C-alpha cells in the first residue's frame, strides 16, 4: 500500500505526462526519428524528478528508491520516451563520489541543463574479431553517460555523441559506450564501484516498475478492446478462451507488481542487489509475455502501427533490455540467492558497504 508521498509523486508524474500529451509523445518521437525534447526535460527537472533520490544535503529530496516505484509505474503507463530512470540514478551516484569532477557534473545535472545518466554495465566481451570493447549502452541523446570500467575500477563520464549508435525499436537510439581519449575520470576505487552498483540496482528496480506500469496499462487497453470489439455477434471478451488468457495476464501483472514493491523494501539491506535483479528479471519477462498476447488479442488492428498497443510492445522490448535482460538479471538474483542460502542466520543484516562481485561483469 503506497504511502502519501508515493501517491503524490505518482499523481504528479501522471499529470505532467498527460499534460504534455501522454502516449502521443512516444509516437511523435518515434516519427521524428528520436531526439530528446529539452523543454519537457526541463519541466521534469523543475519538478525535481531527477533529484528524487539525491540526499537532501545535496539539495535533493532524499527519498528512498522504493518511494519512486509508483512514480515509475506512471511513467511506464504512458511510455514516456525520456531516460528518466537513468537520470534519477545518476544524481545520488555523483553525490556519493564526492570528487570535484563528480560535483561539477552534479551541478550541471541539477537544473536539468545537462542530461546525465548512469549507464549500467553491459560489457560485451565480443571475442575474436570484435571491433568493439564496450562498457555499457546508453540512450544516445543524453549529454553525459556515467559508465564503469570494472577491471580498472574507474567511473567514467562519456559523451554518447562520440559513440557508435544503433536505432532501437521504440524510435530511440542506443550508444555503445567505450573508453577513449574523451573519457573523463569521475571517481575510482571500491567506493566508486559500490556507488555505481547501487545506481544499477536503482535502475533495475525502477525499470521494473516502469515495466509494471506499462504492462498494466497495456492490459487495460486490451480489456477495453475486448469489451468493445464484436465478432460472431458478441464482444470478443465473451469468448472463454480469450477470457482465460486475459485472466492469466491479470495474474502476471498483479504478481509482478507485488514483487517489485517487495523488492523496493530490500533496498539498504544485503539483499538489495538480488532483489533489484529479481524485480527486473520478473518484470522484463512478464512484460514481453503479456505484450505479445495483447497484440494477438487485438487481432489485425494490434499489428497496425496506428494502434498504440504496438508502441507498448516496442517500449517493453527496450525496457526489458535495459540494465540487464531477464536472463542476466535472473543470473544475478540466482547467484545472490545461492550465497544467501549458504549463509547462516540472521539472513537479513543491514547491507555492508562494498561492491557486489556478481554484478561487476
Amino acid at each position: 500500500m503506497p504511502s502519501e508521498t508515493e501517491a503524490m509523486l505518482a499523481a504528479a508524474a501522471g499529470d505532467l505526462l498527460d499534460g504534455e500529451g501522454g502516449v502521443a509523445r512516444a509516437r511523435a518521437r518515434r516519427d521524428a526519428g528520436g531526439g530528446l525534447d529539452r523543454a519537457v526535460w526541463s519541466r521534469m527537472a523543475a519538478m525535481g524528478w531527477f533529484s528524487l533520490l539525491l540526499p537532501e544535503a545535496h539539495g535533493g529530496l532524499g527519498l528512498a528508491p522504493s518511494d519512486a516505484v509508483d512514480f515509475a509505474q506512471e511513467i511506464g503507463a504512458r511510455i514516456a520516451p525520456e531516460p528518466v530512470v537513468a537520470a534519477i540514478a545518476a544524481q545520488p551516484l555523483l553525490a556519493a563520489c564526492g570528487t570535484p569532477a563528480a560535483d561539477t557534473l552534479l551541478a550541471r545535472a541539477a537544473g536539468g541543463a545537462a542530461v546525465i545518466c548512469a549507464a549500467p554495465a553491459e560489457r560485451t566481451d565480443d571475442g575474436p574479431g570484435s571491433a568493439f570493447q564496450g562498457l555499457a549502452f546508453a540512450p544516445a541523446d543524453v549529454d553525459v553517460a556515467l559508465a564503469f570500467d570494472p577491471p580498472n575500477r574507474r567511473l567514467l563520464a562519456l559523451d554518447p555523441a562520440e559513440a557508435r549508435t544503433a536505432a532501437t525499436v521504440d524510435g530511440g537510439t542506443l550508444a555503445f559506450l567505450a573508453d577513449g581519449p574523451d573519457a573523463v575520470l569521475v571517481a575510482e576505487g571500491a567506493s566508486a564501484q559500490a556507488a555505481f552498483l547501487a545506481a544499477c540496482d536503482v535502475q533495475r528496480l525502477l525499470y521494473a516498475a516502469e515495466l509494471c506500469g506499462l504492462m498494466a496499462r497495456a492490459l487495460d487497453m486490451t480489456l477495453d478492446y475486448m469489451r468493445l470489439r464484436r465478432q460472431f455477434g458478441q464482444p470478443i471478451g465473451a469468448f472463454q478462451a480469450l477470457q482465460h488468457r486475459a485472466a492469466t495476464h491479470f495474474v502476471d501483472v498483479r504478481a509482478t507488481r507485488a514483487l517489485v514493491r517487495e523488492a523496493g523494501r530490500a533496498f539498504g539491506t544485503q539483499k538489495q542487489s538480488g532483489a533489484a535483479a529479481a524485480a527486473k528479471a520478473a518484470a522484463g519477462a512478464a512484460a514481453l509475455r503479456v505484450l505479445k498476447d495483447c497484440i494477438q488479442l487485438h487481432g489485425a488492428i494490434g499489428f497496425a502501427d496506428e494502434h498504440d498497443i504496438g508502441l507498448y510492445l516496442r517500449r517493453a522490448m527496450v525496457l526489458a533490455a535495459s540494465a540487464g535482460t531477464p536472463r542476466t538479471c535472473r543470473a544475478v538474483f540466482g547467484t545472490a540467492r545461492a550465497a544467501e542460502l549458504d549463509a547462516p542466520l540472521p539472513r537479513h543484516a543491514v547491507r555492508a558497504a562494498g561492491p557486489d562481485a556478481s554484478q561487476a561483469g
Partner: protein
Amino acid sequence: MLRPETDAEAAFRADVRAFLAAAIPDHLRDLTFRAPPQDCMPWYRALSRRGWIAPHWPKAFGGMAASPVEQVILLEEMAHAGAPDIPTQGINHIGPLLMHFGSPAQQARHLPPILAGDVIWCQGYSEPGAGSDLSALRTAARRDGDELVVNGHKIWTTWGHHAHWMFALVRTSSAGNPRAGITFLLIDLSSPGITRRPIRNIANDDEFCEVFFDEVRVPLENVVGAVDDGWRVATALLDRERIQLGAPAQALRALERVRRLAPLADAGLADRIAEAELAVETLTAAFLDAAERFAAGEDPGAESSYLKILATETTQAVLDIAQDLAGPLMAARDPVRLGAPLVDMSEMFLQARRLSIYGGSNEIQRSILAERVLGLKREAR
C-alpha cells in the same frame, strides 16, 4: 521474502528454526506427500502447544494473530526444515468461517478442539454431479422436527475417512435459483447412516474419499447461518479460503526440492533454478501484499482468485524444474540417493496435479476473474 526483518521478526525466525530443528519427528521430516492425519496429529499438537497452529487466527479465538510477515517466516522455515503438511480444513477453512458466521455456541464448541488438534474436519462440497459447478449439488436434507435428515453422496473429500466432522453444503429446497435453497451444515461423522469409502489418488495415496449419507440426522443447531442461506456462507468461505490457498506453503516445499537437487545441475540448469527461486519469491510477495490488504480491512473478493491460480501454478512450475533436475531419476518413486542429493520429487510432482483442480479448479478461478474483476461479459446462452 525480500524485505528486511525487524529485530522481533528475526528473533521469531530464529525461534521457529530452533523449535523445528528439535521438534519434528524424524519419520515425519521431508515427506513428499500429505501424511494421513493419524500420523501427523502428534506434530499438529506439538505446534499447537507451541501456540503456532493457527497463525492467522485472532488472539480472541486462541490464534497467534501473526502478521503476514510472521506467517511467511513460519512457512519458509517449515519448508526449509521439512515439516510435514498438516490437515488444514479446520484451521484454514471452517475455523475462520465459524468466527464470522457461527453462533457463539458453535464457536465455543468447535474452535477449541480445532486448536488443540483433537478434532479433524473435512469439507463436503463436491458431488459426483457437482464439481466445479457446486450449484448443481443434490445431497438433500429435509426438516424433521429439530433435525435435518441428510441423504446423498459427497466425493473427493480430503481425509474424509479420518475426519471427525464435516462441514457440508446440502440442498434444503429445490425451488428457484439453483444457488438458493442450499444450507451450510456441520455434520458429526460418527452419526448413524454414514458410510465412507477411501479413494486412491494418482500418487497411490488414500488421501480422499467418498461419503454416503443415508437418513443421517443432524440437529438444526448445526446449521451455520440460516437454512437455505448456505450459498452466501460458503461463498464468503471460498473468498477467505483463497487467501490461504494463495500462501506459498506448497510452493516453498517444492522449492526446497529444487534446492536439494541443485548440486546435480549442470550450467545449463542454473537459469532454471533461478526461475524457480524467482517464481516462489513472486508468489511470496503477492501473498504478503494480499494478506496485508486483507488485514487492513480490504475485502479479498473475487480478485483473490488470482492468488489461488498463482500459488498452484507456481508450485507446479517449480516441480517441473525439479523434474528437469532429477534427470533420469525423475520417474523414481522411491527416494534415491546416488550422490549427495536425495532425488525424491516424483510423488510431490504427482500430488501437485491436485492443486489446480481442488479448491475451485483454476478454470473456474479464471472465469471468476474474467467476469467479476475484468468485466468481460459472459456469452449469452
